């Protein structure tokens, strides 16, 4: 809506408040990134984050190199996603594509665990364990080593392009790119035998897919960890939105204790602390923040709960002789209670956390039991439906079945197959001939064997209708047994 204000000057000229629609003030559709120069801090949480970074990067880079002897029938890499042979190896566990529900279970576990952690401690994942956080932290550390701390970096950014500035920038980006290539390089080792792939990659003999994957991940690591940084969390990641639904006012999160800090203001040494808060408005929490926000504005979308502001503030509090943890892991409820002069309390047992813990426990137990008791043999039966049954010249009726015999162990085995629920005149294994029960069937190590079987029932043994039958597969050595239900159709309605 345009408001029309007419002001007539004494000279009779009409004046308007019209503003050009494309004036600079109206053109704020896009926002350039405000550069952030986080200051390096030292303290409990910074040390914790260094440790977390070392452990997580160590796991990421080293795990593909762990060997695990499985004999000649399977690869000897402890953790391997073998796409070509459709197997996933994790130490003593081997997962076939049919068992993808274990992966689903793991994802469910991961999701519920992160719900529980969010309800209890806020964005612990975002602050310490998320790859985006870990690599950004590493990239900022490299930046700090080469260009100096916050103030030096701000000066360098504003400085003219001298040889020294170019050298620093080249060194920084070169290091970042090296880290990025190493990151992409480590990723592909999870999908192939690490030592031989490493040799191939370095000698130029790797596959185009491997180089492509390394290049793609190097590019994303460099651009997301080095250039995009906090914008990934703010603009791209859905988790900040989801976690808002997981946390409540009892959630422990990095919190500015406004009950202690306000009213804030500059403080001179020797001045009284009466009638004022402990916050001296030094902005060290803002300077240390990798997200470039002010924690004193309260819990907010951008905050990844990395707790570096706690370290920054504790340092200041020690210098001015105040109690530490003006910024601390605390709850919104406690800030309100303290403001109302009530004692703080921490409620970890809440309906939400009990629910998440129960789901977590149930899924864990179900997964563990099913993993521990899973059979190394399996049997699937596909019944011929086309034709549904075949009447032979002498009136006997024949049904066809395709059996899939799975040997999940790493040694070849011979199973015994028998049929229950019907008296067959003959069992014909295609490729073997007419056989008697139990039928010995050899299956190679770690393989599936498909066998087509024709079951014929003599006219005198036939009863009308469909009959439930069971194929039973037994390993005579271990006694493992697997039964699969099927139907025998007589062709006559009962």
């Amino acid at each position, binding site marked *: *809506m*345009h*408001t029309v204000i007419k002001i007539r000057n004494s000279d009779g000229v009409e004046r308007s*408040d*019209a*503003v050009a*629609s494309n004036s600079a*003030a*109206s053109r*704020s*559709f*896009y*926002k*350039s*990134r405000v550069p952030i120069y986080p200051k390096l801090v030292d303290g409990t949480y910074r040390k914790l984050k260094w440790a977390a970074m070392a452990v997580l990067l160590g796991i990421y880079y080293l795990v593909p190199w762990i060997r695990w002897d499985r004999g000649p029938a399977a690869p000897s890499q402890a953790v391997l996603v073998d796409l070509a042979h459709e197997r996933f190896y994790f130490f003593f566990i081997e997962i076939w594509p049919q068992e993808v529900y274990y992966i689903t279970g793991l994802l469910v576990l991961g999701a519920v665990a992160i719900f529980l952690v969010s309800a209890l401690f806020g964005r612990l994942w975002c602050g310490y364990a998320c790859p985006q956080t870990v690599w950004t932290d590493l990239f900022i550390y490299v930046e700090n080593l080469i260009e100096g701390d916050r103030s030096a970096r701000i000066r360098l950014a504003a400085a003219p392009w001298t040889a020294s500035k170019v050298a620093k920038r080249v060194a920084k980006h070169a290091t970042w790119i090296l880290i990025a290539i190493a990151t992409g390089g480590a990723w592909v080792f999870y999908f192939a035998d690490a030592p031989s792939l490493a040799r191939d990659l370095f000698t130029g003999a790797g596959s185009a897919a491997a180089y492509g994957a390394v290049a793609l991940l190097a590019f994303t690591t460099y651009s997301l960890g080095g250039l*995009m940084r906090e*914008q990934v969390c703010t*603009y791209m990641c859905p988790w900040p939105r989801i976690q808002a639904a997981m946390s409540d006012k009892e959630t422990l999160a990095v919190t500015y204790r406004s009950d202690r800090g306000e009213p804030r203001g500059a403080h001179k040494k020797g001045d009284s602390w009466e009638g004022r808060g402990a916050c001296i408005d030094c902005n060290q929490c803002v300077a240390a923040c990798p997200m470039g926000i002010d924690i004193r504005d309260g819990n907010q979308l951008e905050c990844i709960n990395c707790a570096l502001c706690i370290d920054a503030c504790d340092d200041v509090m020690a210098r001015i002789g105040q109690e530490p943890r003006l910024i601390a892991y605390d709850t919104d409820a406690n800030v309100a209670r303290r403001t109302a002069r009530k004692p703080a309390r921490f409620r970890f047992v809440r309906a939400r956390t009990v629910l998440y813990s129960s789901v977590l426990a149930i899924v864990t137990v179900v997964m563990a039991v099913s993993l521990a008791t899973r059979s190394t043999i399996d049997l699937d039966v596909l019944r*011929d*439906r*086309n*034709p*549904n049954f*075949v*009447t*032979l*010249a*002498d*009136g006997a009726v*024949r049904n*066809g079945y395709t059996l899939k015999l799975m040997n999940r162990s790493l040694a070849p085995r011979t199973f015994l197959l028998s049929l229950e629920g019907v008296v067959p005149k003959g069992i*014909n294994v*295609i*490729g073997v001939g007419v056989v008697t029960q139990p039928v010995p069937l050899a299956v190679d190590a770690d393989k599936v064997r498909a066998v087509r079987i*024709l079951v014929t029932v003599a006219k005198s043994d036939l009863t009308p209708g469909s009959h439930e039958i069971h194929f039973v597969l037994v390993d005579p050595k271990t006694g493992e047994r697997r039964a699969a239900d099927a139907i025998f159709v007589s062709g006559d309605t009962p």
Partner: protein
Amino acid sequence: MSKKEIDGVSGTETTGHEWDGIKELNTPLPRWWLGIFFLCILWAAGYWIVMPAWPGITGYTHGVLNYSQRDQVMADVDALKAARHAREAELAHATLQQIQANPDLLQFAMAEGRASFGDNCAACHGAGGQGARGYPNLNDDAWLWGGKLGDIQHTITVGVRSTAPDTHQSQMPAFGRDGILKPEQIDDLTEYVVFLSGRPSDKGAVGRAAKLFADNCAMCHGPGGKGDRAMGAPNLTDNDWLYGPERADIRDQIWNGHGGVMPTWGGRLSPETIKALAVYVHSLGGGE
């Protein structure tokens, strides 16, 4: 707009649009996002140059790479043919028995046979070779023209009542339609055929029909109704009925003398494919 409205909580400009008291924030887009948009436009321009893109009146721009999915398919088909060449040559030289005895070759023949069956045979015989009324079931053990590997290969090659000079030939007379027998005689014969298949039947009719059968039917179907493969005459004493097992079906067959046609595949399919089909059909369960 004369005045920007700023949202008090977020400090962001609003669009001025309001629903149920909630105002839409005009959050500025990050500028790099805009950059990606322009990058995409650049990418599209590059795509026009490299790949086929613009339609014309008689053709289209081929692009620097001259990429064509059709060429890709043709190349893939050629590559597949080249890859199969050695196996096809083996199929051509091996006898049907040798194919069945060699597991590798058998697997290849079965795969080709299954594919070819789906393309050429399934329309009449059904996807699983289960047949239908008038189209023989290839799974059972009743064979009009023989169920050995060589018999099946021959039947596929020459067909039944087809245009091939050496095709299987048989013709059952239409006893009723052509007035060869009287309707009541056909009723008696129907009862006789039911009797032959071992089912309860009218003794009087069977007695009357014995001579009729010997005079009219035994020449092809044999005196005991056991059939004759040399003539393509079905066995009437078994449980297999091409045109149905009921009295009405049998009477209809005697009256009309149906005889289906199977085309000759000799000129249409290569000898190797016919071998593969013979092995596949033989493996369906009824092969002799």
